[in-house]
C-alpha cells in the first residue's frame, strides 16, 4: 500500500514546505519541522497531535506509532530521574535556606531595633544566601555610618537653630563655630555663617535704607500733606466758586424769570430791537393792544410800521430812523390800526441799550395804549374849555350888565334931553329957520339912542337878566319863520338854500322868541359869510329821545382855528365896522345855555362852517 502523503491528505499546496514532495515520508512533527499551518508545541502537545493525526490514521503506520511510543517512554524515564535528583537537591537547599534566612531575619531584626553592629557569616552554597547575607552586613554597616552622621547632623542642626534663633532675635554677631567631618554640614555651617553675615549686612543696609526711606517718606508725607492741604484749599476755593457761580446762575435765572415775568405781565407792549432790525423780545401784552401775537412781530418786525395808520407813518418812519442812528431817549405818539380795525393811540418811548463797554445792542421800546387816556384828555380838555368858557361868559355877562347899566343912564339923559329939544321945537312956533333940519338931527339922536338901547338890552339879555317864557314849539316852524325874515336878502344875493327838515321832529318846550333870535343870528352870519351864489343848508334831526338838533351849514370861507375859540365872546366880530355888534353869537350862546341846550361849531377854512344847535325837548334851564 502506498502511503498517504501529508500534502495529499491536507490538500496542501505549499511547495516551499520541506515535507512537500519528500520521499522518506517521515513525521515531520517530531523532527522539529513546522507544519499544518504553524502547529508546534511541547512534547506532550506534539504527542496529542500525533495521536489525532489524519495522516497517521490514513496510513495506519504501526511501526511509526511504536517508534513514537518508545521515544515517549524513554523520555519519561529520563524525566523521573531528573525529578529525583532535583528533589534531593531541593531538600538540602531548603534546610540551608531556612537556616540562612533565619540568620538574615535575626540580623535585620537587630538592625531594625537600632543595632547596626550585626555581622553575618557570608559563606553558603547557595549564592543567593551569600549575597543576601552580604547585603545585610553591608546594610548594617551603612546604617551604622548613617546613625553616626545623624548624631553629628543633630548636633550641628541644633547649633544652627540656636544661632538662627539668636539672629532672628537680632543678634547679628552670632555665628556657627567648630568644624564637622561631614562635608555637607561643614558647608551648611559655612553657608549659614555667610548667610547670617549677608543677612546682617543686608539688614544694616536695609536699616540704613529704611531710615533714608523713612526720611524720604516723612518728607514725601509732609509734601503730600502740604500738597493735600493746598489741594483742599484749592478744592474749597473751587467749591466755593462753584457755589458762588451756582448761586449767581440761580440769581441770574431768578432775575431773568423775574424780569421776564415783569416784562411778560407788563401792561405795555414792550420790545427790544437789535441793531440788525430784528426783534429780540416782544412782550405778550402786544396782543391785547394790537390784536397781533408776539411771534408775528418777531417773525416780521415790519409789522409795526405796517399797522401804523397812513397819517402817522411819517412820524413812525422818521422816529424809527432816528432811534437807530442817535443814541438817546426818544418818545413819540402815533396811531395804529389794530387787527380788529380799531384805531389805537400809542405812546412810544424808546432808548438805546448798550453793554458795559458801550457797545450798541439795539433799542429798548415801550408802547403804551393811551387811547383811553387820549379820550379822557379830550373830554377833560373839552370840559375845561367849556368850564373856562362858562366862567368867561359869566364874567363877561357881569361886565356886560354893568356896562349896559352904566351906559343906559347917560343914554337916558341923551334921550330925555333930545326929547326936551323936540318938545321945545314943537311948542315954539317961532323957531322956523332950519327947523326941519333940527328935527332931523333930533330924530338922528333918537335913532342912535334906540340903537344903543337895543345893544344894552341885548347885553342885559346875554347876562341872563331877561326872563324866559316856555311854551310848546315846533322847531321846524321857527326855522321857517326865521328864514322867511331873510328870504328876500338871500334871493337878492342869489344864495341857494337847502332845507332838510325832519318831518316827525318832536315838539320842544322852550322859549320861542329867544330861539328865533338865536337862529336869526346864526342864519344872518351864514348869509354874511357866503359869497354871492353860495349855499346854505339847514337841517333838523333827532339826536336822542331828549334832544333835537338844528344845523346851519354854509360853504363860506370857514373860521380859522385861532378865531374859532373867540366867536362866542361878546363884541368879538370879524364883520366890517358897523355891520355887526359882536353880540349875536354871545347872546345866542347865553340863550341856548339858559334853555338847557348847547351850540357846537365845526369849521374848516375854505370849506365852510356848520353851527349845530342842540335843544332839549323838555324844559331844562341852564
Amino acid at each position, binding site marked *: 500500500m502506498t502511503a498517504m502523503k501529508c500534502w495529499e491528505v491536507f490538500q496542501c499546496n505549499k511547495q516551499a514546505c520541506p515535507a512537500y514532495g519528500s520521499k522518506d515520508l517521515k513525521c515531520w512533527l517530531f523532527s522539529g519541522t513546522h507544519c499544518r499551518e504553524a502547529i508546534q508545541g511541547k512534547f506532550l502537545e506534539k504527542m496529542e497531535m500525533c495521536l489525532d493525526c489524519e495522516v497517521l490514521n490514513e496510513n495506519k503506520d504501526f511501526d511509526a506509532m511504536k517508534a513514537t511510543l518508545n521515544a515517549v517512554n524513554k523520555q519519561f524515564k529520563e524525566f523521573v530521574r531528573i525529578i529525583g535528583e532535583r528533589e534531593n537537591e531541593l531538600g538540602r537547599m531548603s534546610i540551608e535556606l531556612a537556616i540562612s534566612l533565619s540568620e538574615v531575619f535575626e540580623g535585620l531584626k537587630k538592625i531594625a531595633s537600632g543595632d547596626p553592629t550585626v555581622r553575618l557569616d557570608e559563606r553558603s552554597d547557595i549564592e543567593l544566601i551569600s549575597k543576601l547575607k552580604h547585603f545585610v552586613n553591608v546594610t548594617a554597616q551603612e546604617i551604622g555610618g548613617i546613625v553616626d552622621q545623624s548624631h553629628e547632623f543633630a548636633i550641628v542642626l541644633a547649633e544652627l537653630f540656636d544661632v538662627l534663633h539668636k539672629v532672628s532675635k537680632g543678634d547679628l554677631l552670632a555665628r556657627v563655630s567648630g568644624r564637622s567631618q561631614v562635608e555637607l554640614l561643614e558647608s551648611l555651617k559655612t553657608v549659614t555663617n555667610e548667610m547670617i553675615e549677608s543677612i546682617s549686612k543686608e539688614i544694616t543696609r536695609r536699616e540704613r535704607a529704611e531710615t533714608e526711606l523713612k526720611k524720604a517718606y516723612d518728607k514725601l508725607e509732609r509734601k503730600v500733606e502740604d500738597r493735600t492741604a493746598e489741594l483742599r484749599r484749592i478744592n474749597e476755593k473751587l467749591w466755593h466758586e462753584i457755589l458762588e457761580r451756582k448761586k449767581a446762575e440761580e440769581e441770574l435765572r431768578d432775575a431773568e424769570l423775574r424780569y421776564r415775568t415783569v416784562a411778560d405781565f407788563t401792561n405795555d407792549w414792550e420790545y427790544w430791537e437789535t441793531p440788525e432790525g430784528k426783534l429780540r423780545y416782544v412782550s405778550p401784552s402786544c396782543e391785547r393792544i394790537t390784536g397781533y401775537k408776539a411771534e408775528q412781530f418777531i417773525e416780521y418786525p415790519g409789522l409795526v410800521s405796517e399797522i401804523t395808520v397812513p397819517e402817522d407813518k411819517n412820524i413812525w418812519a422818521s422816529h424809527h430812523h432816528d432811534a437807530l442812528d442817535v443814541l438817546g431817549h426818544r418818545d413819540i405818539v402815533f396811531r395804529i390800526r389794530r387787527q380788529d380795525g380799531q384805531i389805537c393811540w400809542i405812546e412810544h418811548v424808546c432808548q438805546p441799550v448798550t453793554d458795559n463797554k458801550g457797545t450798541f445792542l439795539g433799542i429798548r421800546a415801550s408802547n403804551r395804549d393811551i387811547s383811553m387816556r387820549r379820550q379822557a384828555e379830550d373830554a377833560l380838555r373839552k370840559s375845561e374849555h367849556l368850564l373856562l368858557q362858562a366862567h368867561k361868559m359869566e364874567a363877561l355877562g357881569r361886565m356886560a*350888565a354893568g356896562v349896559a347899566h352904566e351906559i343906559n*343912564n347917560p343914554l337916558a339923559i341923551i334921550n330925555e334931553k333930545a326929547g326936551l329939544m323936540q318938545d321945545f321945537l314943537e311948542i315954539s312956533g317961532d323957531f322956523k329957520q332950519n327947523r326941519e333940519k333940527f328935527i332931523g338931527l333930533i330924530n338922528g339922536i333918537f335913532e342912535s339912542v334906540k340903537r344903543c338901547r337895543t345893544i344894552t*338890552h341885548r347885553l*342885559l339879555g346875554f347876562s341872563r337878566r331877561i326872563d324866559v317864557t316856555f311854551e310848546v314849539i315846533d322847531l321846524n316852524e321857527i326855522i321857517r319863520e326865521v328864514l322867511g325874515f331873510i328870504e328876500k336878502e338871500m334871493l337878492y344875493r342869489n344864495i341857494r338854500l337847502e332845507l332838510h327838515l325832519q318831518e316827525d321832529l318832536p315838539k320842544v318846550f322852550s322859549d320861542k322868541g329867544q330861539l328865533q333870535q338865536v337862529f336869526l343870528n346864526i342864519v344872518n352870519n351864514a348869509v354874511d359869510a357866503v359869497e354871492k351864489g353860495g349855499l346854505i343848508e339847514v337841517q333838523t334831526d333827532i339826536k336822542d329821545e331828549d334832544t333835537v338838533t338844528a344845523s346851519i351849514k354854509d360853504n363860506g370861507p370857514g373860521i380859522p382855528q385861532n378865531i374859532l375859540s373867540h366867536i362866542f365872546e361878546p363884541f368879538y366880530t370879524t364883520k366890517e365896522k358897523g355891520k355887526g355888534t359882536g353880540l349875536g353869537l354871545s347872546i345866542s350862546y347865553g340863550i341856548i345855555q339858559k334853555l338847557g341846550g348847547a351850540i357846537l361849531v365845526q369849521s374848516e377854512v375854505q370849506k365852510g362852517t356848520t353851527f349845530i344847535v342842540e335843544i332839549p325837548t323838555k324844559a331844562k334851564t341852564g
Partner: protein
Amino acid sequence: MQANVLLVDDETEFALALAERLRLRSYDARAVFHVEDAIAAVQSASPDVVLLDFRMPGMDGIEVLKIIKKIDPTIEVIMLTGHGDVRSVEEAIRNGAYEYIMKPLDLGELIMKINNAKKKRNSIS
C-alpha cells in the same frame, strides 16, 4: 287933571329933563335927587305917582319904596331901572310898586303907565 308926579333919581340931568318934558305935557312933575328930599316931598306934597330909580346913593330903591308906601300906601310908584334885573323888579312889585320901566325910556310908554297908575290911585282913594 293930570297926575302929580315926583321924580326921584340921582341922575340930575335925566331927572330934570324928564320932569320938564312931563310938565310940558301938563303933568305936575318935580324932580328930586336925594332920598331925604324924596321922603320930604312925599310927606309934604303927596304925589299921585313917584318915578323911583332902583339905585339911589345912600339907600337902595326898594327901601325908599317901602318908606313911601309906609307914608302913603295910595301913592303909586313906578320903578326906573337901568339893568332890567327881573328879581329886583319882582321884589319891588311884591313891596307895592305899580310898574317898572327900563332906561332909556320911551316917553309914550311912561305916560301910559303914569296915567294908569293915577287911575288906579284915584280908584282906591
